[in-house]
């Protein structure tokens, strides 16, 4: 299998290659809406303290989006729950799985019907915020999330409500 560059495809490759270093094994989250890269990192729980090797490109020119952000994480594959929440803040994102510098899988994110385990419920009286063996789960609405347990609706920045 040929090794392809692991950022955007086509003419942006060269451009982007200069801005964002390639990774050997890990995940590239591309076509993130400009301005959302740091929120993607928050969804992934990356705050610089865990020792992950991470490259971030912000406001990179993009044919499709005008400008985009790109996040590359070395040595990390994303769970479906993480991809689902990323789809809510970066609906145009592509998630590329990289092995030995090559893209081995390329996925467009799609808006899920529900998300579980990444976002926590902002209602302090919700049973999911007690010490129970369940994750908060939300129905995905057109303009927010509704807790499946207490019906609280989360609107606005869902990254303000990420689970620990």
């Amino acid at each position, binding site marked *: 299998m040929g090794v392809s560059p692991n950022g955007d495809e086509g003419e942006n490759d060269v451009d982007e290659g200069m801005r964002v270093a390639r990774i050997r094994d890990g995940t590239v989250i591309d076509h993130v809406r400009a301005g959302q890269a740091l929120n993607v990192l928050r969804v992934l729980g990356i705050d610089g303290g865990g020792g992950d090797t991470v490259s971030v490109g912000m406001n990179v020119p993009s044919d499709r989006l005008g400008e985009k952000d790109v996040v590359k994480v070395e040595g990390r594959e994303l769970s479906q729950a993480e991809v689902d929440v990323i789809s809510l803040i970066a609906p145009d994102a592509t998630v590329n799985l990289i092995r030995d510098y090559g893209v081995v899988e390329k996925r467009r994110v799609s808006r899920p019907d529900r998300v579980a385990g990444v976002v926590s419920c902002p209602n302090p*009286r919700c*049973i*999911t915020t007690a010490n*129970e*063996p*369940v994750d908060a789960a939300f129905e995905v609405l057109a303009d927010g999330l509704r*807790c499946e*347990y*207490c019906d609280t609706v989360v609107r606005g920045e869902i990254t303000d409500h990420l689970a620990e």
Partner: protein
Amino acid sequence: MRQQVITAADLSRADVNRVLDRAAEIADDPGAVDDRLAGEVVALCFFEPSTRTRMSFETATHRLGGDVVDMGTPEESSVAKGESLADTVRVVDGYADAIVLRHPREGAATLAAEFVDAPLVNAGDGAGHHPTQTLLDLYTMRSTVGLDGVTVGVMGDLKYGRTVHSLATALTAFDVDQHFVSPESLQLPPGVRLDLHDAGATVREHTDLEAVLSELDALYVTRIQRERFPDESAYREVAGQYRIDAATLEAARDDMVVMHPLPRIDEIAPDVDDTDHAVYFRQAHNGVPVRMALLDLMLADDQGGEWE
């Protein structure tokens, strides 16, 4: 057979009618069902005190010939040692044929239902749901003024009152015109208004009972709580406008019924009790046949037909 009743919204119109029909049969002839739950054990798991609801479920179980086991108060149970709700109900599931759960946190019944096989009834989860209250409200309304082609006024604290939210949502399954009477600061919350719109209901809001009183077949009164107001005088001024007495009701139809989930404090004057309008004590009594009907439909094993 539906195994779990968590919210009134889980119940279709057909489900509701089935419970109310059964409740009516039971009320007519309670002796005919006195061994329906013989040998069955219903666990009452009350994580917060609610003496009246607990007694009502206990009475309902006994009248069906079943036995009750009671978790006791949270202070004397394993909850005090920090056990999770999930673990508590899993243990109870092992020795009970049905579980009745009351809990101070919203969503508790939804969570508990994930961990048990036994039928489970939500008897109130914080500010969330209390479906048996809604069923007994519907039963009371149906047995007095009916549930189709009627006009209902709901008055009081419409913002925080879960009883009101649940009843208003349930009434959208019937041909009921609903009017909502409250101070502006205590109108229906956006989420509930959205649900009512989605169900095709028209939400008509008033700040003054006089605007609709003469049209009503039923007036459902709820308490306006002191803690919703910054100070005592603001509370007194507002609450005073949403209090009814026998004189208020002179403008109502003779056959209009006044309902209230109880306990009331002073939002309905005692002089209403002696009028034909007052049905709130009957409403409270209806809790027993309605809960009997629900337990019977969930537990007794010779029920023909399925829940929808």
